[in-house]
C-alpha cells in the first residue's frame, strides 16, 4: 500500500510554478548588462531561417557541381579527340627518326660471348582440352592447348655468375576427328 504522504508528494510535484513574465527577463538582462553576455552558448539558427537558406542553396550547389563535372568531362573528350585527329594526320614517314635512339650503350660482343647456356629445361605447366573446333573449310578437330615454361640458365665462366631466364610458351594441337 502506498504511503498517503508519498501520494501527496506526487500530487504536489504535479503543480507547476508560475513562469516569470517575459518583461521580467528583460529587466534581468538590463540589470546584468554586458556581464550577462560573457558566457554564451552557440545555438543552431531557428528552423525557419534554415528552411529559407537551404532550399535555395542546395539545388544551386548541386547544379554547379553537375556543370563543373560536365565541363571537365567535355573538355577532356575534346582534347582527346583533337589529339587523335592530329595523330591520324601525321604520316608515318614524317616521324623523324630519333638521332640518338637510346642512351643505352651497346655491350661489346666479347661480353655477350662470355654468357653460356648451361642449363635448359621445359616445364609443362598446363594442358587444356578446349573442345571440338568447327571450321567451314576444315573437318572438325579436337583442340588441346599446352602451356610450357622454358627456363634457361646462363653462366659467365669468368666469374661464375649466373642468370636465369623464364619464357612462357603455348602450344596448340588440333587432332582431326573422323566424321561418321
Amino acid at each position, binding site marked *: 500500500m502506498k504511503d498517503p504522504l508519498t501520494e501527496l508528494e506526487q500530487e504536489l510535484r504535479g503543480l507547476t510554478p*508560475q513562469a516569470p513574465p517575459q518583461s521580467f527577463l528583460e529587466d534581468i538582462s538590463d540589470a546584468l548588462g554586458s556581464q550577462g553576455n560573457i558566457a554564451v552558448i552557440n545555438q543552431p539558427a531557428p528552423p525557419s531561417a534554415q528552411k529559407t537558406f537551404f532550399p535555395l542553396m542546395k539545388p544551386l550547389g548541386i547544379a554547379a557541381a553537375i556543370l563543373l563535372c560536365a565541363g571537365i568531362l567535355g573538355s577532356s573528350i575534346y582534347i582527346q579527340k583533337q589529339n587523335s585527329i592530329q595523330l591520324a594526320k601525321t604520316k608515318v614517314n614524317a616521324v623523324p627518326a630519333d638521332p640518338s635512339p637510346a642512351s643505352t650503350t651497346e655491350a661489346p660482343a666479347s661480353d655477350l660471348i662470355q654468357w653460356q647456356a648451361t642449363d635448359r629445361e621445359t616445364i609443362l605447366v598446363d594442358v587444356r582440352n578446349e573442345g571440338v573446333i568447327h571450321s567451314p573449310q576444315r573437318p572438325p578437330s579436337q583442340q588441346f592447348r599446352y602451356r610450357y615454361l622454358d627456363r634457361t640458365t646462363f653462366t659467365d665462366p669468368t666469374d661464375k655468375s649466373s642468370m636465369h631466364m623464364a619464357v612462357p610458351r603455348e602450344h596448340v594441337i588440333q587432332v582431326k576427328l573422323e566424321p561418321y
Partner: protein
Amino acid sequence: MSQLNQEPIWREWFKKHGARLLLFARQQARNPADAEDIVQEAFVRIWRLYGHTGEVAPSLVYKTIRRIAIDYARKDIRRIGREEKANNFEKLELGESQWFEYTLEKQERHQALEKAIQQLPSKHQEVLMLKIWGDLTFEEIGSTLGIPLHTAASRYRHALTKLKKSLSKLPQ
C-alpha cells in the same frame, strides 16, 4: 554551413530555474512585486560572481533570495517604490497571489492545494518549496535556511502531514 545564434547562458539557466526561484521568492516576500525584485537582485548578484563559469548552483541563489527577503522585511527603504509597483497588481495580499499554473481539468484541486500550502506556517512552507519544486536535498535545504539537516527533514514531514490534514477536510 549552419548559422549559429549566440544566446547568453543565463537565459537558458533562468528558463530552467526561474519559475522555481520566483515561487520561493513569492513565499518569502510580502507581495509579487517584491518577489520579482528579490529574485532579480539575488540572481544578478550571484551571476556576476559566478556566471562566467556558465553554471551556478540553484541552492546558492535560494540562499541569497532568503537573505535579501529578510533584508526587505527588515528595512523599509523601498516601501514607496514597492507600493507603486504593487498597485499594478490586482491581488496585493500574500494569500491572494497565485503561485502555480492551473490545468483546466484539475483547477479546483490545484487551487485547494495552493490555498492549503499558503496556510502552512512559513518555516514549513519554505522547506516544502525547496524540497518539492527546488529539488534540493535536505542537506542543501539545511544549508540554505541555516538549520540542521534533521530539522529540515522533520519540518518537511510536518508540512506534508498538515497539508494532508487540511486537504482531507475538503470534499474530494
